[in-house]
Every structure is written in structure tokens, then in C-alpha cells.
């Protein structure tokens, strides 16, 4: 088993009457690119700030590596945690040039700054001031600066949301590559599902102040533990079913389950196939055509709605009757 880079146990934090974190648990493995994914206001930034040492938790403990950094009557100041931070706004020191920003930290090994500037592809721009850099370049300076003192872990708070959409996926790949190259554990916070799923080794989904599920991206998407997580991660429709003897039965087929009695199926549109069929149990309500694919909404015999994401053909029309085949579904209690 790999060592853990960050361990949070039972953290609680409130701001006035607002509860930001409530019994928050998190384990981040050494060397992982780990993401906390949650809607805005769920407390994910607070969690990051507590790990970084900017805020003090009211209860619970935080370890970085094996060092206890926050706990009852203990608060190791940020400067003694060896935790790097990349902010959403990059927070480059505006009065220092690129080199001075990257070499700002205490205890940097000789040659480290040049090596990092090389790594992030900014060699030759040492004398530039932050305002003379593009958004992507600023991002890389912030990253190099955080990596310079060789932190045990780097925290990134929504680091791509300040970049325009065209640039974002490119910068995302770059950052991932740099972090892999540097071999540093990274904990990253975002509200963007696609970003979380495409970048991470592991994703922790957060809601209302606590982590609700942690898994590899594919497992998380295909095996969500609750309807809420399922809907939060992507398009999902729910259809009633009845479970008996290890199988959930519905008009759409049967799926294995350990549940008994009334239940529901979570179905993702890409797992639905439609066939034109005059005798079919469903009919098309509407269709959105995107070119490379189409999203077709249908109503089933019982009035339940379902969406199917299909290739550009066939050309479904509203009102057309269809039969439905579902490849994969997750069974949840009702």
C-alpha cells in the first residue's frame, strides 16, 4: 500500500452560523493526482485552506505525510508545513519578476529555479514581470514557484477557471505533465466534472461539507454510490424498477442487484440504444442535434422520461415510436 500524503480525520469548521466542513475525512496517496470535486459552496476551498494552514479547523486532525499539522490545540503555521499552493488567480507577486517569484521560497536548492523554469518551459522569460505574461504562462510560473521548495504536496484551487476555454484543456495537460515530471503529490479542487474525471488518479466527490465518495474516475462515473453523485457527475435518468432474488426488473430489462423490493435504475444516455419500431413502448419527445452526436428524449409507456445519446444517424423525429435497449444501469433504493 502506498504511503498517504495527506490524512484528514473528522474535520469540522464553521463561519458564524454557516457550517463549511462537517466530519470531513480525506486520504490522499503519495504521488497521486487527487481531486476534490463538488458544487460551489460545498466547502472544498475551506478544506484546501485548512490543509495549507491558512485556516484552523475547530475539530479533527490533519496530517501531512506523517507529521501532525493541525489538531486539538495544535496549529503548525503554513510556513512550516511544506505544502505548496497554486491559487485560482495565480497570486503572482506583482512587484517581482518571473525569476524572483520562482526563487521566493526559503531553502531552495541551488540550480532548482533554472531547472523548474526549464521544466515549465519559461526559460528566457526570467526578467518578465507577471503582467507581461499570458494567462497560461502565469499559471506555469505559479506552479514552478509552488514546486521550488520541493513541497510534500501541492494544492491547486480551481487553477484553470481563470483561463479562457480555448486555452484550458491545453494548459490542463501541460500542468498534469509538469506535476508528473516533478513527481509531486497534487490535491486539486474543482467544480468541473470533466476536468476532475480527465485529470485525476482519484476523485473525491464532496457535498455539504463532507466527502461522499472517493474512487478512480471510471469507477466513480460507472458505480456512483448515490443518485446525487450520479447526477452530479453527468447526465442521468431514473426509472422505477422492482428487485427480487438478486435482479432488478423493469420494462427496460433486468439488472443484477442485492436490493429487495421497489428500487430505481440510474441510466446514462450513452448506455441507451433506440430503434425505430412502430410497435415500440416509447415515443420521441424531442431531439437536440449536435453533429457528432444527438440527444434524443423519449417518454416510456408509464410516462417516465429517458434520454439517449446516439450517433448522428438515424434521423429521429418527434412523435416517432421507438423500442429501447439499455446496456448498463446502476440500481439504487427508491
Amino acid at each position, binding site marked *: 500500500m502506498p504511503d498517504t500524503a495527506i490524512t484528514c480525520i473528522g474535520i469540522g469548521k464553521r463561519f458564524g452560523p454557516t457550517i463549511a466542513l462537517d466530519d470531513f475525512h480525506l486520504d490522499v496517496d503519495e504521488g497521486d493526482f487527487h481531486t476534490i470535486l463538488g458544487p460551489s*459552496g460545498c466547502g472544498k476551498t475551506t478544506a484546501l485552506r485548512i490543509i495549507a494552514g491558512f485556516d484552523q479547523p475547530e475539530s479533527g486532525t490533519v496530517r501531512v505525510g506523517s507529521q501532525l499539522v493541525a489538531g486539538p490545540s495544535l496549529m503548525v503555521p503554513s510556513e512550516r508545513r511544506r505544502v505548496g*499552493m497554486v491559487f485560482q488567480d495565480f497570486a503572482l*507577486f506583482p512587484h517581482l519578476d518571473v525569476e524572483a517569484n520562482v526563487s521566493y521560497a526559503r531553502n531552495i536548492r541551488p540550480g532548482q529555479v533554472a531547472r523548474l523554469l526549464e521544466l515549465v518551459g519559461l526559460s528566457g522569460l526570467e526578467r518578465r514581470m507577471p503582467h507581461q505574461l499570458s494567462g497560461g504562462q502565469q499559471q506555469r510560473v505559479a506552479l514552478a514557484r509552488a514546486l521550488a521548495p520541493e513541497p510534500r504536496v501541492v494544492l491547486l*484551487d480551481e487553477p484553470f477557471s481563470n483561463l479562457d476555454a480555448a486555452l484550458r484543456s491545453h494548459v490542463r495537460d501541460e500542468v498534469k505533465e509538469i506535476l508528473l515530471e516533478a513527481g509531486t503529490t497534487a490535491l486539486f479542487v474543482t467544480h468541473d466534472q470533466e476536468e476532475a474525471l480527465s485529470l485525476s488518479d482519484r476523485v473525491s466527490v464532496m457535498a455539504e461539507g463532507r466527502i461522499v465518495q472517493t474512487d478512480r474516475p471510471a469507477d466513480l462515473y460507472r458505480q456512483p454510490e448515490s443518485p446525487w453523485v450520479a447526477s452530479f457527475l453527468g447526465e442521468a435518468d431514473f426509472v422505477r424498477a422492482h428487485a427480487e432474488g438478486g435482479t432488478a426488473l423493469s420494462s427496460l430489462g433486468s439488472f443484477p442487484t442485492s436490493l429487495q423490493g421497489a428500487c430505481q435504475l440510474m441510466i446514462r444516455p450513452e448506455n441507451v440504444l433506440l430503434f425505430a419500431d412502430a410497435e415500440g413502448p416509447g415515443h420521441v419527445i424531442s431531439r437536440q442535434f449536435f453533429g457528432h452526436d444527438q440527444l434524443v428524449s423519449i417518454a416510456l409507456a408509464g410516462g417516465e422520461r429517458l434520454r439517449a445519446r446516439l450517433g448522428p444517424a438515424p434521423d429521429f423525429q418527434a412523435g416517432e415510436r421507438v423500442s429501447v435497449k439499455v446496456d448498463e444501469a446502476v440500481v439504487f433504493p427508491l
Partner: protein
Amino acid sequence: MSTAVVDAGVLSARGRRAPVRLLGLATLTVVPLLFPFGYLLWQALAGGWQGVLPAGRLAELALNTLLLTGLVVIGAVVIGFGTAWLTTRTDLGGARMWSTVVALPLVIPSYVLALVLLTGTGRQGILSGMVVALGGDPLPIPRGLLGAVLALVVSTFPYVHLSLVPALRRVDPALDEIARALGAGRLKRLRTVLLAQVGPALRSSALLVGLYSLADFGAVSLLGYDTFTRAIFLQYAGRIDRRPATLLAAVLVLIALAVIGLERSTRPPRSERKGRVVRPGSLHRLSNGRRFAAVTFLTLLVATSVGVPVAVLAAWWVRGTAAGRETVAVWSEVGRSISVSIGAALAVAAIAIPIAVLVTRYRSRLGAVLEASAWTVSALPHLTVGLALLLVGVTLLLPLYQTLPLLFVAYVTMFLPQALGPTEAALREVSPNLEEVSRSLGQSPLQTFRRITMPLIGKGVLTGAGLVFLTTMKELPATLLLRPTEFETLAVRIWSTTSEGFYTRAAFASLVLIMISAVPMHFLVSRDLRHA
């Protein structure tokens, strides 16, 4: 199940508990500002009311002060509203130029304006000379109420102008258009739309002008109008018994506190100050005739409030020197004024920094209390600041009596908010993220402050220091009471030579003072009344 609703990241940046050391430091600097006033009020109460002052004296002074204050407020508001409206709501053009020019009178202290009135009128007056040359009678010397009103209106209308300009710019044109569409006439729109929107700014600037008139010492004392400040100074200077001066000062402090409280309660709410972006309103179009009248009005106003004073002083000085009257070098006073002002500027700016950090970086009730105390105390009449500290010096801290440190305490008391304002504004511009990143890179709070925060707020701190320098240069009443014996600043010299009738010397010293204050004038123009 708990709920987490707000964006906690934003909250937490300001939600941290302040370090004890910072709280201690801030408290240590503000408590000395409050104590002298408490002591003054306590001494006044302990001294008793009976027999301290002749019967009816208090009522007489209150009436005189009220009359002066009322007239100055009316005059300053009418002129200040006029200039602000002309430069923002009409197509007059040159708004920025006019706003700068209209604020120019701020470089001339009220006691210099009093000197201008004394040297410009009367049989020897330079303005009288011009009137006589045109076939008129010499102008009478406007001693008493008339002169005091003239001097104070000229020194205060720019404050009204400066605080109304932003308010008038924020006026939402949509409201006026709706009123127009609903068939409201021009007068009704003025009342229901325009005044309703600038009302808070108007009320607050009127109260601040009132506070200024209440507090003025220089003009009323030189022009011989009997108000609280003049009476306090005469009582203090003429008697061994300190009780009358103490009692009068205590009453003045209470009146000023009432006005300050009233101003606080009517001040426009924050949201309105920051304000959303409104579409710039359609400007009132001036006909050619009216445009000419408006330009003439503004030109004459600037001429009489700045040009005439400078010309009168210069002419008097030239005439006096030509007649062989000695000017007496004021260079040692200039040196003293500059060095004491630089010292005050540095001290006040340095003291403002921890308080500003406390207020902007932490959620601390103590910080808010300290800041409010600093603002309140600074708005009290300077003469009472001087008297309160004098009282403390004489009775409790005799070694400090008539020493520079006590004078510096007075400067901090009076001018702290001038440094606090720009320093806080600069700190708000610096994202707390920068400081946090620095900490995460292994730098201690002090190193972070030295390497990140201080370089980034340097300009704001300097602006604050510049403002303190300018106002210290001009400060009269507290300096007069607290200065070490023989320690004559430029302001004190102007006041004493004027009151002794050595107008030529006073004129020269005044010209020097105006020149020194005029150089960094743009500092003052860009700030509103609270900072000026």
C-alpha cells in the same frame, strides 16, 4: 444534516482571528487618543458648573457659534452644490479641470483668509484702494460675524464640491427618464429624483462643514468673533483658573460629538458608495448665454477664493517691504514646520499600518472599534485636542508638558485617519492570497509583510504620509497650545504676527505656507472630505 451555503473561501480570508500581538499593538496606539478626552470631560464634571462662568455666557457663546455655523453651512452648500452640479450634470465641459481648480482654496488655511480680509479692506486695504480708484468708499473691515462667515465659506465649499461630485455622477438617469415619462415637471423631478439620490451626500457634507465651522479657531480669533473656540483660548490664556476653559472645551466636545453622531447616522450606506455601474446620464444642455454665465461664475469664484487672497498678500508684502518694513526671515520657522510635519507624517503613517492591517485582514470587533475611535477623535475641534492633552500634561505627565512628544500625540490624534484611509485602501487592493502564498513558501508573517505587503502598499502609505504632512504644516490651535516655548512654526508665526498687527511679516509667511502646501496639491484634490 448540516448545510453549507456561502462561498466559504471569500469569508475565510477575512474570518481569521487576529494575532494577539497585533491586537495589543493597535490598542496601545489608540488608547492614548481616547484617554485625554475622557479626562477632559471628567475634569469638567468634577470642577462643577456653578460659578465657573458668568451667567448666560454659555448661552451667548452657543448662540454665536450656532449662528456662524448655520450661515457657513448654507453658504458652502449653495456654492458647493452649484459648482458640483455645473461640472457633472451639464455639458459645460472641462469637469476634471474645474474640479481641480475649485478645490484650490483648500491650500489656504482659514487664518490666512482672515489675514487677507484684514489687509484687503479698511482705509489702507488693497481692495479698498481699487474701489476708491473707481470712485467708491473704502471697504469696511469685516470684523466679527461677516468676516468669519466669508473666511469659512471659502475654506469649506470645496469640501461640499468634492463630496457631491461622485454622488452626482452616480445619479441614475433612468429614474429621471421614468419621472419625465410619468409627466413630472422640472421642479418635481429636482425634488423627487435628484435630491432624493444625492440627499445623503448633501446632508453628510453639510454636517461636516458644520463641524469645521464649530471647530475653527484661526479665523474667528483673528476676526474677533466670539465663539466657543475663541472663548476657550482667551480663558486659557488669561487666567490661572483652568476650570472655565475646561468646561467650555467639554461642552464643545459634546456638541461636536453630537454632530459627528448625526453625520454617521445620515452617511450614505456603503452599497451606495461603491455602487453599481450606471449608464452616464444625459447632461443638461446649456444655452450659450447660460454657458457664459456658468463659466463667469466659476472663474469669479476661483478668482475671489484663490487669486484675490494670493494677490492681496503679495501686494501687501511688496508695499510693506518698499516702505522699509522688515520682513524678518521666516526660514527657521519654515525649517521647524517642515521637520515637525515630516516627523508627524512618518509617525502617523507608521502607527496607521498595524491598525489598517487589523481592519482589512481580520474580522475583529476591536479593530472596528479602534478605527471608529480614530475617526471620531480626529473630527473633534483641534483646539479641544490641544486643551485635553495640555490638561493631561499639566496634571498627570508634567515631564511631557510643552515637549514635542506631547505635540506628536496631538498630531496622531488629529490626523491618524488621513493615513488610515489610503493605507487601508492600498491593503484592500493587495489580495490576501499573495500573503498566504508567501507563508506557504516558508516565509514568516513578518518576512511576508516586509517582502510582499509593504512594497505593494508603499504608495498608499506614502499618500497618507503626504496628507498628514500637508495638514500638519497648516495646523494652528493644537500646535499653539502644546508647542515647546519658543518653538514657532510657520502657522503659529502667521497667527501671532497677525494678531499683533505685523501684517507685512504675516503676509510673507502666509505666501511661503501657501507655496509649500500648493506643491503636492493633487494629493488633496483626489480625496474627499473625510480624508482632506
